[in-house]
């Protein structure tokens, strides 16, 4: 192989770097957050079944965001009541941010930029 020494050395360094997250976390266990135990047909605000919220909540928030800001349609009716399509005044008026959002987001290691602007009452002073 032309320049074989350099190529093999480079390959070894590359593989070592790429597999770093795997071998440094061998043996550690992190518990996944419990799945919601609601019945499959227990609908929720926004007409998404609770079991599907995990996968589809971003789609819902995207839709709501355009409806509220761009069209001014701020309220959604559910079960005879009007709910505000809002993270702060909607979801977080019933749920706790840490339990509801933070648990799963922390587990998968994502930091959605929603929290750059939106926040929850429990945080108090930012």
């Amino acid at each position, binding site marked *: 192989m032309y320049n074989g020494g350099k190529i093999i050395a480079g390959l070894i360094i590359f593989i070592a770097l790429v597999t770093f997250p795997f071998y440094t976390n061998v043996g550690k266990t992190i518990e996944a957050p419990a799945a919601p135990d609601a019945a499959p047909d227990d609908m929720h605000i926004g007409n998404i079944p609770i079991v599907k919220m995990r996968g589809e909540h971003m789609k819902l928030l995207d839709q709501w*965001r355009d409806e509220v*800001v*761009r069209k*001014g349609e*701020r*309220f959604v009716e559910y079960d005879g009541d009007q709910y505000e399509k809002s*993270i*702060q*005044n909607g979801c977080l008026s019933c749920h706790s941010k840490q339990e509801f959002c933070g648990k799963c987001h922390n587990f998968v290691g994502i930091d959605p*930029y929603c929290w*750059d*602007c*939106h*926040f*929850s*009452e429990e945080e*108090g*002073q*930012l």
Partner: protein
Amino acid sequence: MKIDRRKFLKMAGFTGMGLGLSAADMLFKAPAEASSGHSAVSTAAVRRAMVIDARKLKTDEDYKRIVDACHSIHNVPTLIPEKDTVKHEIKWIWTDTYSRLFPDQVNHYHPEGFKQKLFPLLCNHCEHPPCVRVCPTKATFKRPDGIVQQDMHRCIGCRFCMAACPFGARSFNFIDPRPYITELNTEYPTRTMGVVEKCTFCSERLEKGLEPACVEASNGALVFGNLNDPESEVRKILKTHFTLQRKPELGTMPSVFYVIGGDEYAG
């Protein structure tokens, strides 16, 4: 069918271009939210407007109440850097003197007291807003009810709208505003660094049937209503008083009118 590589690539290229062009026709669909035609007056059912009766604003407390009402419920940061007070300032509504609001309508012989008088300034929610015309993403857009709204989710922070606004009504988040918010309102989000913000005529309150916060706090000095309803309070004032708009010669057709007064300084 025998075909050489060159011909195949040519056909693939043209097909791709054709598909691309047909998708590109969406580029030219007129956006529903862009500003309306050029010098036409609004004929919508609702056009939100405000009349500011400056004669009813007398003490510092009057002005402070209005500004604080807005800035506190909207989590507007208080940025007072040590050196240059206008540097990273964020303001949705504030006060300034007549010569700063109406620089093209100043003469040197105004009464002294009048020269010091303060007037509130805010976004004028123009009928033909230049800021909406220049926004490359429609992050700032005109609602059907005339409010020039800001979509913080879409804003890329290019600040073209700030260059285009003839009234200096817009502020940019040069830094993270959160450390500078004195009292958080938990019912409204903050903004993050890198987006432009301005007065929204309290659209979130209007949608709940409330008046804008500054109007509510003004004890009648600020009147808000539907400019296209001939029986509305704002139209009544406009019919019976002489009012000024800011920079009317630019054709933006602001929705904010000022009853200047001034005669109280006579004699």
